């Protein structure tokens, strides 16, 4: 049974890796695409994806976590709260292309940000927000009510209770939700295509700060789409190499999440 589950994964990753092998090197990561994207590396899209993911999480994490804290710890159970909760769940199910159009209208055009990293990150943030809220709420709800009551009984305020007891004991679940959203944001193509990602852009190779917030950028997911379908004469290994780097980035983040979770679970307190 386990084999049945693991075999396809190993097969897919192994196949991609095998196909990508001829071009995988450090050079591949640290050089821009060249010759109309028929050779060179993936530095520009890799950095673009990192920017988009980090900036979008920087926007959606505080808002999402605070919203979840409010909904779970403060909000009274009335029709308005129930409506907000329903909206959050439904928003999580909206197709990403719809988020893309919203981002185009709201951030690129209305807010006047133009097609930029900032506009694309905001769009990704809107897309990841409902999932972050939902997973954070779930993590908070998993902290037993008795802990909160014990804190209130000794005269702790609601915020003190949240700050010292609820959040430290739900951080595990909150982080898990966040890290899943990193993978989600890194892989999405539609929302950034409309709002900030471009077909080609060369940047300073090896410079981590090559993009500014109002620049347009390349992104791995879109780059993969471009070189697999839009550009004729791309060597066979190039899209596979791009895919394996995207996959590797996401797997690395997932591995990080597993490490963080096991360490936190070792400190589990009840």
């Amino acid at each position, binding site marked *: 049974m386990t084999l049945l589950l693991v075999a396809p994964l190993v097969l897919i990753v192994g196949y991609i890796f095998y196909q990508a092998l001829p071009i995988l090197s450090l050079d591949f990561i640290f050089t821009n695409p060249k010759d109309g994207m028929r050779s060179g590396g993936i530095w520009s899209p890799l950095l673009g994806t990192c920017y988009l993911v980090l900036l979008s999480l920087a926007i959606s994490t505080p808002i999402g976590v605070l919203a979840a804290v409010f909904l779970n710890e403060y909000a009274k159970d009335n029709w308005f709260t129930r409506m907000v909760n329903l909206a959050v769940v439904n928003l999580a199910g909206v197709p990403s292309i719809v988020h893309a159009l919203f981002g185009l209208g709201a951030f690129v055009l209305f807010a006047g940000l133009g097609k930029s990293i900032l506009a694309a990150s905001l769009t990704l943030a809107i897309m990841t927000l409902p999932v972050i809220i939902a997973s954070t709420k779930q993590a908070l709800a998993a902290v037993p009510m008795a802990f909160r*009551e014990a804190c209130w009984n*000794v005269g702790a305020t609601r915020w003190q209770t949240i700050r010292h*007891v609820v959040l430290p004991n739900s951080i595990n679940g909150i982080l898990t939700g966040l890290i899943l959203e990193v993978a989600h944001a890194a892989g999405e193509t539609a929302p950034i295509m409309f709002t900030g990602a471009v077909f080609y852009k060369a940047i300073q190779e090896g410079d981590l700060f090559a993009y500014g917030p109002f620049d347009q950028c390349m992104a791995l997911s879109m780059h993969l789409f471009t070189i697999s379908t839009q550009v004729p004469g791309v060597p066979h290994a190039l899209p596979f190499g791009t895919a394996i780097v995207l996959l590797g980035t996401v797997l690395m983040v997932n591995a990080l999440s597993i490490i963080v979770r096991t360490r936190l679970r070792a400190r589990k307190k009840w």
Partner: protein
Amino acid sequence: MVKTDVMIEIKDLHVRYGRREVLRGVTLDVYRNEVLGIIGPSQSGKTTLLKVINRTIDSVPGAVVSGTVKVDGEDIRQIKDVYALRRKIGMVAPLPVGLPMTIFDNVAFAPRMAGIRDRRQLEKRVESCLRQAALWDEVKDRLDTLGTKLSGGQQQRLTIARALSHDPEILCLDEFSIAIDPVTTMRIEDVLKELRSRMTIILVTNLVQQARRLADRIAFLFNGQLEEIGSTEVIFSDSPRSRKTYEYVNGVFG
């Protein structure tokens, strides 16, 4: 005992959860430095009464409270600083709750939240509370281990230490012995006998004999109403005012 020195004054208290009325016009006084036992079958509103006194009932969805409750002469529905009220009252819940932090932090939690930062002051407070709760000798060498890892009886004494940590004037115990063994129960009862000279104690219990051992006066709640309140001798005599009290105390029902 000076009968006029009233610590808690409850007048015509009604509490509803939605449509269900759990307290129906309860009027009673708790005197300073007495041990008041509150007995009664389950669903008679005992726990609700305690929740009203420290106003944690505010966070119960759908609870509606009417009537007046005064603690130390102050109407608790009018006071602005509800946290100060709660610090005045130590509350021990039926099931032991060790907070998910070290033993030291469990007891130091309330003083810290009240703004005490000085380490030495905290250490003194923690030691004295743990001693009062008869737990110090068992845990003094491992104050930095998790409170949740203690045994049930130890956690219940930890809960008592925590309830004492903010130096309350009133101590409410809600069926504190429900989850612990008889030996530990006796130890805690001894602790309570020590504390009674210094604070007002409200002891909610299903064990009428426990109330008999500890309480100066006993209130018998039945179906959300105060059936009878009187001195322990009268309640346990052959002729309490109410027939129901006699039957409950002697195990005819409940």
